[in-house]
């Protein structure tokens, strides 16, 4: 009886741990039954492609939430970094140029500068949280407004278009696979390694799991927090690059609200708002759940307003399940 009970328990645990994967498969089967073209290669690629931008953002915010923070400024970080990348990477023939006299730079320059600035912005968020001790919610909320203002100021409210091929490349395909998907997968791998195989990730878990224990263990909590936010900034920079490539232009209001989708994806993937719990694969699956849901609902003809309602309910449902799971664990 004992082994049977243990077996049941293990089964139950597996279901709980990978429950979200079952949800994803279940959803895909339902959509497929209603509309078989849902499962076509083209459509699946499309789903992955649509998922990539906020998927990349979700990777960053997963780390932040594991360290018991939050980042509401991600959308504006994407816009800001995107504008920087675009403004330094405009064709000479562009009608509106942010820097009229700038010669065409090698494409690595706009990309490097964009990523660097995004990382610094993230680090600034981290600085406010770690050093001044204000809640991450407030710090990043303030940062949102600051960055949106900075965006408008930077281009005088204009969109930046006519980007060089080197940037547009990040919106195209390589061997039939969209570049955004490739970048997303690479970033997921990078995050996975950082989170599971370096001090950086270990510290994030420790801080979110028990900040007191982290301190007593000699972990530099402030520095680690800053690093986590900086990493999220970097991910926003990468997302911005993909955004610029795909949309082929960036405007100051770009990516508004993306942070909420990213946070939702992370949450659906089982990252706990109480900190200390979360995985990269969870963030990826959570992102796919949202992306499949949006795509599938459209394919089976559910109207757009209903889609939002369903999405909201899924987010809340996921958190309810997640909380029960963690309550059991305690």
């Amino acid at each position, binding site marked *: *009886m004992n082994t049977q*009970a243990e077996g049941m328990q293990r089964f139950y645990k597996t279901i709980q741990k990978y429950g979200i994967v079952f949800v994803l498969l279940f959803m895909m089967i339902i959509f497929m039954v209603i509309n078989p073209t849902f499962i076509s290669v083209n459509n699946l690629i499309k789903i992955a492609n649509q998922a990539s931008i906020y998927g990349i953002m979700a990777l960053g915010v997963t780390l932040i939430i594991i360290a018991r923070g939050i980042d509401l400024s991600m959308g504006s970080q994407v816009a800001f970094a995107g504008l920087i990348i675009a403004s330094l990477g405009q064709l000479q023939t562009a009608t509106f140029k942010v820097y009229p006299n700038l010669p065409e730079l090698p494409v690595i320059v706009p990309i490097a500068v964009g990523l660097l600035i995004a990382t610094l912005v993230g680090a600034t968020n981290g600085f406010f949280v770690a050093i001044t001790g204000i809640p991450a919610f407030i710090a990043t909320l303030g940062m949102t407004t600051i960055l949106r203002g900075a965006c408008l100021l930077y281009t005088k409210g204009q969109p930046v278009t006519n980007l060089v091929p080197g940037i547009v490349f990040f919106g195209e395909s390589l061997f039939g696979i969209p570049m955004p998907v490739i970048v997303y997968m690479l970033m997921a791998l990078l995050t996975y*390694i950082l989170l*599971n*195989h*370096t*001090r950086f990730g*270990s*510290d994030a*878990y*420790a801080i979110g*799991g*028990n900040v*007191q*224990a*982290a*301190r*007593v*263990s*000699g*972990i*530099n909590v402030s520095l680690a927090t800053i690093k986590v936010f900086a990493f999220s900034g970097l991910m926003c920079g990468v997302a911005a690059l993909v955004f610029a490539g795909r949309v082929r232009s960036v405007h100051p209001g770009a990516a508004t609200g993306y942070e909420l989708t990213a946070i939702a994806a992370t949450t659906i993937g089982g990252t706990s708002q109480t900190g*200390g*719990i979360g995985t990269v694969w969870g963030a990826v699956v959570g992102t796919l759940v949202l992306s499949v849901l949006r795509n599938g609902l459209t394919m089976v003809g559910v109207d757009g307003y209903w889609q939002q309602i369903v999405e909201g309910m899924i987010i809340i449902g996921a958190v309810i399940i997640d909380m029960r799971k963690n309550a059991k*664990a*305690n």
Partner: protein
Amino acid sequence: MSEQYLLEMNEIVKSFPGVKALKGVTLKIRPGEIHGLVGENGAGKSTLMKCLMGIYKPDNGTILFNGKEIKNYSVRDAMNYGIAMIQQELSPVYHRSIMSNIFLGNEPKTNLGFIDWNRMKVESLEWLKKVDVEEDPTREMHELTIAKMRMVEVARALASDAKLLIMDEPTSALTTKEVKQLFTTMRKIKEMGNSIVFITHRLDEIFEVCDQITVFRDGESVGYVKPTEIDQNGLIQLMVGREIKNLYPKTECTKGEVALKVENLSMGHSFKDVSFEVRHGEILGVAGLVGAGRTEVIETIFGLHKKSSGKIFIEGKEVEINSSSDAFDNGMALLTEERRKDGIFPILDIRFNTTVANLKHYIRKSNLINHQAITADTKEYIKKLDVKTPSDKQLIQFLSGGNQQKVLISRLLLTEPKIIFLDEPTRGIDVGAKSEIHRLINDLAHQGISVVMVSSELPEIMGMSDRIMVMHEGKVTGILENKDINQSVIMEYASGIRDDFVPAETERVNA
């Protein structure tokens, strides 16, 4: 007189807003010594250790480690010097593996700079073996018993290569057997030439394991003695500054009707078929090893867990208790075992923490809260239980562990319960306060209240109970009148050697 000390702390002063926690204390520790640090709650023991660990900066005084002065250092530095600390309140990272906890902040790395999980696992196994814990290092921390978590923390300290190990009340959550095991480990550490600062309120432990004792009173060091030069009473007198006459002031009182009756209560895998009753004015002690299911039983009665079967009667009437508020409505109150996790609101003040369970009594007709009454009651209980605090507005997180416990007991008493469940009521409480709390428990019984007291300290169980219920692995093995029994009998029941309730027929054949 040029003795070589491993650690010398001289004239250490540390103040917090409103409290001078350390008024120039001295602590000297030789290499290879287990050094007992004793003193009442709030005497400053933990504060001094936190100063040593680099968590607090002392306002004044010098610290010499290995003959060299150290100052203005961080926790990281302290660890590098070779000092490690096991904190008073357990603080593991619950959702990480055992090995992550052992190497927290100190993870071994591969040449490429990645965390070396394999090495971590192998080394963890070694350290776990040293502290006699047989667990898979990849198990998550929250799945362990408290005793094992303690041992993991010891392993962690060892893994950090500490020459001086600070153990702030490591035994408070352990049972006799586990304490023995810890002592074995401590002696091993001593034989390796390392030193231990050992803080405890259980004085017999001091005499059992220490080579040297320092006594604190009110932020001052008032004694530096060898255990061979002093006896328990002498030590108490040093600590308290007065004589404690009776640690277990239990007096007979008349028992009334049955107040609480539990019939065949079961809850999942935790415990099975628990039946007992308690009368008005009776104190029922619940003994057993950690993990026997004692806490689960009282928490289930209290509605914190869902029972899988069984009945509960109060004053002869069957009741359904599905939540703690049902329990309150039925006149029950519970003092939880894990005060840090389940009991206190750390960032709120003593007034809130004292009255939170009883707020409805402080609502005026106008629906506004009567703050004067709250203040008055809080002050009354601060005085009654002798809580050491600069004011009733102090945040509870700044009180010493024992004083936090007193505030929680105040909270309980304010609800004027008829049935009280106490889970390890004097854990981490000094002798003086302990005898006060025991006196309080005795008073409660005299007021006709039924008391169910879980305790891992057998002297406490035997000193305070009318009857003793012993549990072993989720089953009641005996309910004994507390007359003419000795510790070893209780231990036999607790370890399952004796069992008065062996099922008459073994029916579970195909189990």
